[in-house]
């Protein structure tokens, strides 16, 4: 990104240095145009190999009847046209119904998790903006969940959420005396909240880190000027900090949204193969649909639908946020 930002001025400077020469600049210009693409080529090829090829295979699979009888040789699986899709979106039948329910669960989960992650991250970043003793320690401490390996961290949570021997019930039930009997966190309806807690715990340090970086770009004299004009802390946050963080937040929320919506590791490690209905996130649901019935065609069709949904959301989001920014930038 720095590259693209820097190139235009230097290009302009070079053009200015060789005025009039019609042939030479054209040839060198052509070379110059080709150079960035040549430099990008290795990355582009790898991108194709690592991301696009599996994606295209996934899309191909979604049009095939790829059941256990064909997984040894995919190419022999018969084409099934749109059958996999009609099964996935037939919301009157159990498969479609379950997918729809899982979709709504995921939406609610994502909104709550992203909202909380953003709020906690922003609040912590703003509080730690002032210089005080122990600030460095706190900043490091807050980043620990982000630095821990996901599996190790979530397994620890799974132990803490155990009903009979877990730390959570020990504190809530045994020490604080909440509830008549210890609650279940890994099965039943509470599992949604257990999942949300782990997801926020895991996600907010990223928001914290990003917002903290964004805060460093806000000139201090803006705050000083505002203070002179009699603006309190809250007004400073509302009218200086948040608007200045706009572009940071735009990317942050989008990335958090995509990560959370697609999160597979957290529910899988927390609940195992069969997630409780209340916490049946869509990525795990797709995994279950593929591996439960060994019908990878239907699973792929669901993945493609998810991909389309996320593309639409991302597109609309970028369209809305960048349009708003264009006017404010000018």
């Amino acid at each position, binding site marked *: 990104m720095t590259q693209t930002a820097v190139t235009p001025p230097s290009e302009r400077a070079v053009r200015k240095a060789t005025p009039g020469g019609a042939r030479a600049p054209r040839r060198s210009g052509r070379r110059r145009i080709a150079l960035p693409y040549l430099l990008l080529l290795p990355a582009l090829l790898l991108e194709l190999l690592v991301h696009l090829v599996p*994606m295209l295979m996934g899309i191909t699979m979604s049009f095939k009847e790829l059941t*256990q009888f064909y997984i040894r040789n995919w190419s022999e699986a018969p084409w099934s046209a749109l059958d996999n899709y009609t099964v996935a979106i037939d919301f009157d039948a159990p498969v479609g119904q379950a997918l729809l329910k899982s979709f709504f669960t995921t939406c609610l989960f994502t909104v709550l998790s992203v909202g909380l992650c953003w709020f906690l991250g922003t609040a912590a970043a703003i509080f730690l903006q002032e210089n005080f003793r122990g600030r460095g320690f706190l900043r490091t401490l807050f980043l620990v969940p982000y630095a821990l390996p996901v599996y190790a961290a979530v397994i620890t949570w799974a132990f803490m959420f155990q009903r009979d021997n877990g730390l959570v019930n020990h504190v809530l039930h045994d020490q604080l005396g909440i509830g008549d009997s210890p609650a*279940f966190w890994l099965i039943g309806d509470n599992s949604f909240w257990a999942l949300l807690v782990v997801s926020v715990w895991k996600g907010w340090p990223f928001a914290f880190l990003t917002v903290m970086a964004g805060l460093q770009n806000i000139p201090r004299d803006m705050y000083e000027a505002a203070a002179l004009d009699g603006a309190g802390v809250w007004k400073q946050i509302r009218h200086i900090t948040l608007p200045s963080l706009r572009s940071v937040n735009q990317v942050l929320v989008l990335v958090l949204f995509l990560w959370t919506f697609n999160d597979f590791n957290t529910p899988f490690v927390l609940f195992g193969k069969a997630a409780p209905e209340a916490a049946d996130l869509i990525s795990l649901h797709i995994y279950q649909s593929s591996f439960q019935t060994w019908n990878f065609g239907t699973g792929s069709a669901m*993945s493609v639908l998810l991909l389309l949904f996320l593309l639409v959301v991302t597109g609309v989001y970028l369209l809305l946020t960048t349009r708003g920014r264009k006017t404010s930038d000018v």
Partner: protein
Amino acid sequence: MRRFRAAVTGAVSLSLAFTATACGGGEGSEASPKTLTYWASNQGSSLEVDKKVLQPELDQFEEETGIKVKLEVIPWSDLLNRILTATTSGQGPDILNIGNTWSASLQSTGALLPWDAKNLEAIGGKDRFVDSALGSTGVPGKEPAAVPLYSMAYALYYNKAMFKEAGITKPPTTWDEVAAAGKKLTKNGKAGIGVEGSNLSNNIHQVFVLAKQHGADFFTADGKADFTSDGAVAAVKQYVDLMATQKIVAPGNAEYAQNQSLSDFAKDKTGMVLWQTPSQTFASQGMGPEEWGVAPAPVPSGKPGTGKQTNSMVAGINMAVFKNTKNLDGALKFVKFMTSDEEQILLNKAYGSVPPVKSAQKDPVFADPSLAVIRDTLATSAAALPQVPEESQFETVVGTAVKELFADAAAGRPVTTESVRAKLEKAQQQMPKK
């Protein structure tokens, strides 16, 4: 710049969106005739124990044949997915252990070498194996997809100290006696019997046997899913009712999936468990063989037999050869070695299981009372899980249904015939259409 950023975010979202399907990988199979890769299942109390048991035997095999066997012990939670991945990619081990209930499912994928007459001849012939174990090696009438390696069966294990304290003099033989004993044992935070409510396979093993006792099956004779028959519903309800209405199972068991019920048993918190070959695990939890007793699993009449008096599934491990192996000759030699009398006695003794090889079964080690119960159960009152291609899916969907019903029971919600039937109906609709 802005467009660039949009493109980047677009690309990122695309790739993120597809992480759910983009799984793959697997080990390469060796082309050299001097090596073999072997995926062993987890039979001991830990993966390390398995390595310790198997490695000396593999070394001996190398000494005899010059073929080096590379061992990987794979936990049960991963084994089926690893096999599926290997099947899809064609990159797998040369020899592998499979749960015998998966035989028909994996057979249908075509990933495993069929044991035709010639291959069976290479390991000493079909007649070396016990019939009941051969019944779990694939769809009847087809060439077996695997050969039996270890045999196990369910039995009722009881905690002697807790039985004595509750004044129970003999282990229960019928379900009514289980209920009565359970009531006596359930007090002061202790429970009558343990279950592994979130362990899908274990749930299946238990409700399969109960369905047999109700005269029902989960598949029709021509292999169609039939989960909602009265017998099947009654069987599932009977199992969940141990917690829901009889209250002789501690509610916490609903989330057990890592053999916690065995720890509870070893810690004198649970009086009984229905299990297959737990002696190793008990020992690793500090419970010696004199502290527990074993009896045949309960049946309606109190006398195990066939049909409605079935009291166990045919549990066990089969050994299969991956069809893509580049060293078929070596693989067959290895299977022959592992099913030889000497190895059968040694390995089954180490794992507390029973050899599926007739001549090895005669060894005095297996006349020990705790193993004799298992041997007799296998010979007289065990039935094989349905040998249909959809068996593995059945384990997942019905196992999940039972798990959800246990979650209901644990939360105090009523478990009725209707709610059981509804869950099983949903499970059946998730099965592939035939």
